């Protein structure tokens, strides 16, 4: 057995790091070279000398933070070499441009899952099963209580929620990149045919998606001084950061909801302060994580981004899979 220092990829200063290539994956502090799995802000930090990502991630990042960052891009599946290590991006199904990253060195394969999901999502490429020896997987929802419903069922629930209260303005809070576009895509298939407004941050991302060839339903950019009557019976998509504070005073007679995997638990739903919760997530549920672990054929698995104790114990006891711990 190798010591932690000898693994090709390990944890250093709170992020994944490959010493042999001197390259970091989604680092939380500025470094020389950073591989970026996707364009969510908790996977990205300013000030790195060079970024490497998929083409889509690069465009979304630039849309969010401006053009003056240096990004090298590769297609999904295209291999590139750093210090003798073969590296490639593969679709992870999380959001547009999101990827798993595979490292091959001395015939040993390592796979970083990135954030991923297996569920249907027409706004991004489907998760690709990649075989590996070592798997580093996220486990945000690594408990068997998390089992997602089909996204069209959730969209129908949202549609009913809006149409059942025609007198109200329905505010749906969701992450502006990925979740919002997926929801728009699903909601356009439901019976709800009223107006949909979106906050500027979401509007911007919708446009970027369209530029990248993804069809997204048209929404109206929400102006602060909209007449209350116009908004009655319509849906407004807002980023969660606006759910607290004075922004909501712009509206009257509202009902609020949050679209997140955590909303499947009643205590969290109640504590969140929203009227309603819709359990829809861009992360894998318990069955999804197990499926990926099995299909990857990994002999050794690491978990991060989540409470992995139960998941690890389960895999060791039930599936006889070797689960390793990073020394953090």
């Amino acid at each position, binding site marked *: 057995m190798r010591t932690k220092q000898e693994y090709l990829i390990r944890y250093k200063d709170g992020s994944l790091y490959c010493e042999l290539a001197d390259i970091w994956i989604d680092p939380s502090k500025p470094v020389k070279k950073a591989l970026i799995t996707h364009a969510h802000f908790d996977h990205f930090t300013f000030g790195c000398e060079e970024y490497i990502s998929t083409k889509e991630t690069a465009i979304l990042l630039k849309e969010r933070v401006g053009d003056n960052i240096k990004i090298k891009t590769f297609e999904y599946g295209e291999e590139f070499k750093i210090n003798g290590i073969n590296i490639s991006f593969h679709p992870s199904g999380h959001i547009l441009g999101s990827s798993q990253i595979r490292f091959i060195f001395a015939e040993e394969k390592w796979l970083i899952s990135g954030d991923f999901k297996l569920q249907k999502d027409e706004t991004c490429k489907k998760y690709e099963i990649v075989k590996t020896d070592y798997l580093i997987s996220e486990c945000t929802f690594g408990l068997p*209580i998390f*089992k997602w419903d089909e996204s069209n069922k959730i969209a129908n629930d949202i549609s009913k929620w809006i149409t059942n209260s025609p007198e109200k303005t329905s505010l749906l809070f969701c992450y502006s990149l990925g979740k919002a576009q997926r929801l728009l895509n699903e909601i356009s298939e439901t019976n709800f045919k009223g107006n949909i407004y979106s906050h500027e941050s979401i509007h911007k991302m919708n446009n970027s998606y369209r530029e990248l060839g993804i069809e997204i339903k048209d929404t109206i950019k929400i102006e602060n001084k909209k007449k209350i009557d116009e908004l009655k019976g319509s849906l407004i998509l807002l980023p969660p950061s606006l759910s607290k504070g004075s922004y909501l005073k712009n509206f009257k007679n509202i009902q609020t909801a949050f679209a997140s995997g955590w909303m499947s*638990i*009643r205590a969290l739903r109640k504590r969140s302060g929203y*009227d309603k919760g819709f359990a829809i997530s861009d992360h894998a549920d318990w069955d999804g994580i197990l499926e990926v672990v099995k299909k990857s054929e990994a002999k050794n698995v690491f978990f991060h981004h989540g409470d992995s104790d139960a998941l690890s114990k389960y895999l060791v006891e039930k599936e006889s899979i070797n689960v390793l711990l990073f020394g953090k």
Partner: protein
Amino acid sequence: MSLKKFSELFLDLDSSNSTNNKIEVLKNYFLSNDPIDNSWAIYLLTGKSNKRFISGRYLKNLFSQLYEYPVWLIDTCYLKVGDSAEVITLLLKNKSTSRKKELSNISLNELLSKTIPDLSKLNEEEKNLQIKKIWERLPEDYHLIFNKILTGTFRVGVSIGLITKSISKLINIDEEIISHRLMGNFKPSIDSYEFLINKNINLEELNSKPFPFLLANTIEDKIFKNSINDFQFEWKYDGIRLQLIKRSGNVSLWTRGQELVNETFPELVEKMSHIKDDFVLDGELLVWNFKEQIAFDFSLLQKRINRKSPTRSIQIKYPIIFIAYDLLEINGRDIREIKLENRRIELEKYFSKWQNKTENNISDIFKICDLIFPNDWPDALTYKEKSRENNTEGLIIKKKTSIYSSGRKKGIWWKYKVDPMQLDAVLIYAKGGSGRRAGLYTDYSFALWKDEELIKFASAYSGLTNIEIKELDKWIRKNTIEKFGPVRSLKPEMVFEISFEKIQISKRHKSGIAVRFPRITKWRKDKKINDADSLENAYELMKKIL
């Protein structure tokens, strides 16, 4: 008229934070369902005496056995969810293989009066199989309701008050009347529902029921602007609030939780039945120190509370007294609308009559509360400070001109509690909370210094704001020394001000002391752990009080 409708009602109520909305939802539900299901709905929502058919632990073990799931994994999930019924509901998702859902149209009445009670006729093995069968035949959307009914854990944030309001709106009758009709045991039946929504008010029908209790509010500063003469002052006893009713010769004792406790205090029932008049009295039941004429500690009363049909020796060892502070009805005449000062005159008049004319001496079990007469507000404060000397919790201040309405109405009664005792203690353990606080560390243990060592002296759950809870939760996760199941031992670093009501010697605790109602009153971020109090400080506090 089915479980389906009730499931939808549950979801509607659960996803609404507005009271008016909830009332509207309830009203519509009552309008569109039949009386028997309505009656069951009220029974479940008010959670008055929801029976537990199986425990949460049993449910978890059953699921583990049926679906070959490790118990530890279910327990881990429970820490996140905080409710056994919900954990099992979430785990049951997609488990059922049968497509046919024969039970999708089952009525609430059938489920509650037949399907579930029938379970208890089965032996354990049959019962387990039957529960599995029900799970498979019930649409997934109803699993939560079913599991919650099984485990008797129905809490939806619907209070009796909301039910009262919605029925009052439904039939346009005063809330007070509905509230009175809802008092006492609510037995689900067509009759009980029709009685509730009857538009004709017939007070005799309410004979067996206590009046809705009037509750005191915490003191507000603005009261001090009023003349002291506008108020009646009483000691605030730390016992059980009771309505003592004698109607048509029958005595009944009702707690504020609307429980009939005649069997727990038979000697009181017996003595009071000798009084010739009929009446309704509001007062406090205590275990009484007759020598010193003060109440014994609440812990002695606890020895009586859970014991039905106590033996003679228990009755002698823990002698009870009922201290009446209000007269609400006399010989069939409801006098709640009379001013308090006049009700007091009536109370005193009848009490002296009963004392003189009742064959059996009643004064060893029944008296009326003494009034206090402070000269001014500072004087009232002095009385309050002295309340520990006679084992009371402070003062109750009542407006002399007030009528006896129901609930926690403002501006009628106030409680003026003695300042709590306080110590600064160090946080040493945390445990995951349940229910609303699931997934957060919200149960804390605190320690005091003994030489160089920190000794646990109290556990507290309440007192922090939600924001503080979240902040502390984050800190706890980062500063854990060891995990023992759900409990984490923590780096001693955080100091909190802990307030409590009583402090006494206890051999059961390592610290040698026990405190009552400990709660967090301040997060002392300004203090280092060396500034925290020692056990010695606690002993001094105890001496001061004794």
